[in-house]
């Protein structure tokens, strides 16, 4: 059996792979894709796979119950059945672009898979450049697809390529070979990939660098019966993907109420962090991240005598506490800055498009709607319940996930 993931040495290997993907032209019906995805989700439970960060999200993502509504919303309910849908005197149907190139970010283990599933749902074939650090998890996850996809309906439509990020010639060959591209990552990576020589017809969708923020009103944290559960949700959102994802909360705005001491909240948050750390201890760390965490702790406390912090002797987690409505410089590595704010709306009103996701815990529904409206106006693309900041869904970064990699074909009947 051939290797699932190919190490690429020269541009012709990429060109040949793209040609083979094009030869497998017929897309399977959406129902067949859903069935395979369901089986794949069920298979992602073995030892080794289960431990991959984010794989529980991936299992949820691959469920028909998740994907069918997304497909229906983006392409219409007829698309779920692979049919045309009538619109007045014409009928419309989405067709795949062809071969979609994927440049996932290197920090999210499941991102190559999330990206390619979107393109597969649009009926495309996928040419995926897997970042060096993600080769192991990607191989394990795709191996599970290969096990359930006995007729190679999807497996033959995927080509996973591995090559050094500095190999411009290989990036260029990949760009020339595709009809569409899904690009994820930091500023430098995204800029470099965008500048590649894509064909003039290629559609390019970019999911660039963002950060995320959480906000909690007094009605939520002031309720002793709810406090602990909300703190656990905050901790869970911080821990996922080691706080390096664009959807990871870096700052929590905590709305103050008169003279109520937030001490109990901080004690509860500390317990939640300790508990999350026990359940999901870090097994290794880049020394540079350790340095950054130590620097964040020291700088914060030296900057202002009113600043507070809580952290263990290790680099495991850090809670920094201050007051204000600005977003302090993020550290990542499970370092959350909690900012006491008089009014959450003031904080949200200062966002400038950098914030991707706003995780909310707001007791009053009307107030939440006002915050959501303000956040939307200030560039936030996802407003979700705290604890669900990483749940992948469409739209993402304000963009549909399936539709951009399709062509909407219009058929006006000749006899009408």
């Amino acid at each position, binding site marked *: 059996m051939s290797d699932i993931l190919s190490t690429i040495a020269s541009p012709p290997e990429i060109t040949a792979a793209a040609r083979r993907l094009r030869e497998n032209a017929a897309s399977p019906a959406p129902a067949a894709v859903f069935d395979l995805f369901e089986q794949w989700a069920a298979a992602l439970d073995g030892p080794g796979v289960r431990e991959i960060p984010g794989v529980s999200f991936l299992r949820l993502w691959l469920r028909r119950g998740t994907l069918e509504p997304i497909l229906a919303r983006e392409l219409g309910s007829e698309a779920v059945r692979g049919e045309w849908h009538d619109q007045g005197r014409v009928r419309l149907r989405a067709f795949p672009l062809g071969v979609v190139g994927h440049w996932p*970010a*290197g*920090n*999210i283990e499941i991102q190559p898979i999330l990206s390619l599933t979107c393109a597969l749902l649009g009926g495309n074939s996928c040419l995926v450049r897997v*970042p060096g*650090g993600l080769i192991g998890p990607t191989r394990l996850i795709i191996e599970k697809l290969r096990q359930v996809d006995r007729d190679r309906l999807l497996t033959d439509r995927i080509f996973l390529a591995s090559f050094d990020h500095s190999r411009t010639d290989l990036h260029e060959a990949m760009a020339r070979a595709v009809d569409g591209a899904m690009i*994820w*990552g*930091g*500023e430098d*990576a995204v800029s470099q990939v965008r500048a590649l020589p894509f064909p003039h017809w290629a559609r390019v969708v970019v*999911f*660039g*660098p*963002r*950060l995320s923020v959480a906000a909690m009103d007094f009605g939520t944290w002031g309720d002793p019966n709810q406090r602990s559960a909300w703190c656990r949700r905050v901790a869970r959102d911080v821990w996922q*993907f080691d*706080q*390096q*994802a*664009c959807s*990871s909360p870096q700052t929590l705005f905590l709305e103050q109420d008169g003279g109520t001491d937030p001490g109990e909240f901080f004690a509860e948050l500390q317990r939640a962090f300790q508990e999350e750390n026990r359940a999901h201890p*870090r*097994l*290794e*760390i*880049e*020394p*540079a991240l*350790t*340095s950054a965490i*130590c*620097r964040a*702790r*020291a*700088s914060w*406390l*030296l*900057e*202002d*005598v009113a600043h*507070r*912090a809580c*952290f*263990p*002797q*290790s*680099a495991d987690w850090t809670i920094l506490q201050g007051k204000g409505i*600005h*977003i*302090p*410089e*993020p550290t*990542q590595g499970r370092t959350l800055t909690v900012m006491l704010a008089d009014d959450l709306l003031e904080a949200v009103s200062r*966002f*400038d*498009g*950098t914030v991707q996701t706003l995780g909310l815990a707001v007791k009053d529904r009307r107030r939440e709607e006002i915050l959501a409206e303000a956040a939307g106006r*200030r*560039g936030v693309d996802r407003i979700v319940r705290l604890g669900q900041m990483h749940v992948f869904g469409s739209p993402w970064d304000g963009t549909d996930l399936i539709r951009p990699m399709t062509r909407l074909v219009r058929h006006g009947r000749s006899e009408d």
Partner: protein
Amino acid sequence: MSQVAEQQLAQVEQSIAALLEGAPYGMDPGQRHQALLRLFKQELEYACQRSPQFANYVRHWPVSLSAAQSIAEFPYLPVSVFKANPPLSLVPAGEITRTLSSSATSGQVPSRVVLDLATSRRMTKGVVAIIRDFVGAARRPYLVIDTQENLGRQSELGARGAAIQALGSFATEIVSCLRPVEPGESALDVDKLLACSDKWKDSPVLVYGFTYVIWTQLVQPLEKRGIRLSLPNVHVLHSGGWKRLEQQAVTPDVFVRDVAATFGCARNRVIDYYGMVENVGVVYPDCERGYKHVPSFADVIIRDPLTLASAEPGRQGLVEVCSVLPTSFPGFLLLTDDLGEIIGHDGCACGRRGTHFRFLRRVPKVEVRGCGNLETSRARRGGGA
């Protein structure tokens, strides 16, 4: 200064003086640890009295000062906090006699530390005590592989100037052998160098230069012209990191071989030392076994990057440098961005007592790989919402 702080400072100064009096590598490790534990505690308490910001940091440390049983439990500062402006200080501005700044590479913010008169004096004493142990106490001609401008006394001094001037106590005369050719550029004054070489011949000579300066400004130009000096009794001290030489594929072995050949001396007379401006008064020259030794007035702890606990000998980790010498800024316990490993806590075959370690490399920068952003504002990048 409050009366409490004054009393604390007096006690601290007395204890530091006692440590500086003794041989730098002669103390029993157990005794040394106890002496340092007491002294660091006093210094940290004193620093808390002088700086509310520092006190805020110490107050939040997971182990209280009173509960700490070892130096490793004391609050340490990451060395990067000295990039703050204004620099962290424990003395009023009027008492600052000198500011030292690190040799930040282009685009980086240099660290800055402030010295008062007492700290300056201790810095000199510390460096002299250490270097004396390696090259002997005698005064001798001092050849500086740098330009004249780094020799003068200045209130704001860079790492190169500080390193050059720290060795001035060993000099009978000081000669710099580089001349400025255009702003920021220098070239070897070969005639001057050859004249010195003729004059000093078999005498003991002290040479100092930054590692890459010695290589690019002295060794390479002389090799190109086929010139070799004849200074067999020279000691060549160099410091300042290997990054630029690594880019030219120059290994430490090649460097030592070629420097020794250039001066016409034995290879063991070329001594690399590790140091940084923030760790005032302490440098770590390589002993003949290739290890760096910790003097009695300092300590080195290697911290596991994951747990930040003190690592056992043989385990690699982040280097924490500790020095009792500064009282003008809180530079007692500093976590560096360097990786190293403890070789042993005593018993080096070179005969020096106490902890000896190995510097491995700078902490590699982490490539920002992901979609998570570290910019909090689009405006900073010139964009807009």
